[in-house]
């Protein structure tokens, strides 16, 4: 056989393999609004940048007549390519081939591309669309998952890891996304759970649909497992591309700088967003947009614990992780979920050299039996731990209220913020004036001729004395009291001045965070 014939043979083999599960299976996949594995990869990557490997890998199953079956590529597509010119390693499970089930060689293809990503120090993107373990391969399927989980853990904090759930992801399979940095889900397409509705029904007698149990909305709103929610696969891919523009390739690099752009101040006027009455709500995302470049803010976990806002923005072209209390929801309190959400994001930013901008306006921790019993102590402690541990530049702006434990937790100087600025509207105190006056002046109020009058008088007295930033500034806990319209200038300068910041923590194997 000459080169020509051999090339023709190669082409024939490739055509066979690329067919995946065949025309019928592909049609079925498309009929429910899903793209095929290769189409998905091509849509995420830059045009013509995808190079596929391990196309001819064959499965290793021997039992239950599996040896007679041909599963093209063993149900997973792997390769490398670029996103916004960024190199990435990528894999996509192919549901059309044996339901995307994970056997030993399928897992080996994934672990091979993972090892590759670690060596090359580039981000890893995994597209999950799989029925779960390939039961016929028994313990080898479990071994495959275990090998993936171990690598996910080793890669955590070294290279960015992104999981895209575009189909079912059930049983042990869900733990790989859970170990990665960001999980993307698509409405009505993504399904994640440990035990499915069938098992729950037979074992426990509880009936629930797949969507209600582990649909995209549930994980975005209730469980907090997902970070980005999209209406369609296309919208999801756009979110991935946007996210990639904010994060660095690996933990030794900084995010690529962008040209500096002014915020859209006509749309977001920083002076008029915040009501001066601390009891009134506003959308803190407008404050972020009033400070950052081009007013572009990529919010993460928008639907989960909306009382805290997290996400990426740029200030003077540089990527910044924003953490802000949201007075519009639950008055911006810290609770179990919001502490958990923010703490994880703080650790992400610290791992990947992204400076943090914290905007503070909160009345404290949420009171309630359900909160206490759900462990608000240990979850709240996560935020203290994460901020204290972080050594990237930390800039805090106190917009309005900073009461009690919330003041400490929101990246105060005591947790080693580099810069703490406060607006003149800031109120830094141990609690709100009403509560504080009631405790401090309990006897005066009780013994007064007119207790209500006295209470009002004492609340006013407390407000005048403590509801301002100057008491804290007098102790040096605030570096500068600034006018709202100077915020961007101060933040820009703080970032510039701390661009080569280097801070160390005591050497240790690792700490014991309140997980």
């Amino acid at each position, binding site marked *: 056989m000459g080169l020509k014939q051999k090339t023709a043979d190669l082409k024939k083999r490739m055509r066979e393999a690329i067919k995946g599960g065949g025309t019928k299976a592909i049609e079925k996949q498309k009929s429910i609004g899903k793209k095929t594995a290769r189409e998905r990869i091509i849509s995420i990557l830059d045009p013509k940048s995808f190079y596929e490997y391990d196309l001819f890998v064959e499965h290793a199953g021997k039992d239950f007549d599996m040896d007679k079956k041909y599963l093209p590529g063993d149900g997973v597509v792997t390769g490398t390519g670029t996103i916004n010119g960024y190199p990435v390693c990528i894999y996509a499970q192919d549901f059309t081939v044996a339901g995307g089930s994970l056997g030993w060689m399928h897992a080996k293809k994934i672990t091979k591309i993972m090892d590759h990503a670690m060596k090359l120090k580039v981000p890893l993107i995994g597209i999950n669309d799989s029925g779960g373990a390939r039961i016929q391969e028994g313990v080898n399927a479990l071994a495959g998952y275990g090998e993936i989980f171990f690598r996910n853990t080793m890669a955590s904090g070294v290279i960015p890891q992104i999981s895209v759930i575009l189909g079912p992801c059930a049983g042990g399979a869900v733990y790989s996304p859970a170990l990665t940095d960001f999980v993307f889900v698509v409405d009505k397409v993504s399904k994640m759970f440990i035990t499915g509705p069938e098992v729950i029904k037979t074992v*426990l*007698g*509880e009936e629930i649909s797949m969507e209600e149990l582990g649909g995209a909305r549930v994980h975005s709103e209730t469980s907090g497992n997902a970070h980005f929610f999209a209406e369609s696969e296309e919208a999801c891919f756009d979110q991935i591309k946007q996210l990639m523009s904010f994060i660095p390739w690996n933990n030794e690099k900084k995010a690529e700088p962008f040209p500096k752009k002014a915020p859209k101040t006509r749309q977001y006027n920083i002076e008029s967003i915040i009501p001066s009455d601390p*009891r009134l709500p506003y959308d803190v995302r407008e404050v972020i947009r009033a400070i950052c470049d081009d007013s572009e803010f990529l919010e993460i976990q928008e639907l989960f614990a909306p009382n805290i806002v997290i996400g990426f923005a740029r200030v003077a072209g540089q990527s910044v992780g924003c953490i802000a209390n949201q007075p519009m929801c639950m008055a911006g309190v810290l609770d179990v979920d919001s502490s958990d959400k923010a703490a994880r994001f703080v650790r992400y930013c610290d791992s990947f050299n992204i400076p943090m901008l914290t905007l503070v306006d909160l009345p404290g921790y949420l009171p309630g039996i359900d909160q206490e019993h759900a462990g608000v102590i240990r979850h709240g402690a996560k935020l203290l731990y994460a901020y204290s541990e972080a050594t990237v530049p930390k800039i805090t702006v106190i917009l309005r209220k900073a009461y009690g434990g919330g003041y400490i937790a929101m990246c105060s100087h005591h947790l080693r913020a580099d810069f703490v600025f406060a607006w003149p509207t800031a109120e830094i105190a141990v609690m709100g004036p009403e509560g504080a006056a009631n405790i401090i002046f309990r006897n005066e109020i009780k013994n007064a001729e007119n207790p209500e009058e006295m209470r009002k008088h004492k609340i006013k007295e407390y407000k005048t004395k403590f509801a301002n930033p100057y008491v804290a500034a007098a102790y040096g806990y605030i570096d500068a009291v600034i006018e709202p319209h100077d915020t961007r200038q101060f933040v820009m300068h703080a970032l510039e001045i701390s661009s080569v910041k280097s801070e160390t923590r005591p050497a240790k194997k690792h700490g014991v965070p309140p997980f």
Partner: protein
Amino acid sequence: MEEKNGEKKLEYKSLNIDLVRYKTLYSHKYLLRKTYQKSDPRMIHAFIPGIIRKVNVKKGSPVEMGETLLVLEAMKMKNEIHSPIGGTVKQVHIREGQKVTKSDVLIELE
């Protein structure tokens, strides 16, 4: 949240923290939270959904603290349910072979 003329009209509620009433929205989870109920040792609830495999007591039977009242099978495990107090059985709400869901009242004591 209600859409009106393309603009979202937000229905603010109030939230009391340290005696201050804040105007704000409630989160999805806050609305779904369960109100705390004090546990009553006289009410025997199913701690897990499952099937009643055996009932050892009848209405009016005297029971001692620690006595096995029934066997609840769940997750392939037969769980013996012991009486948390001594007394008499006021009411038996289940029979052998019955499926129960979590938190169902199984037996009332007095």
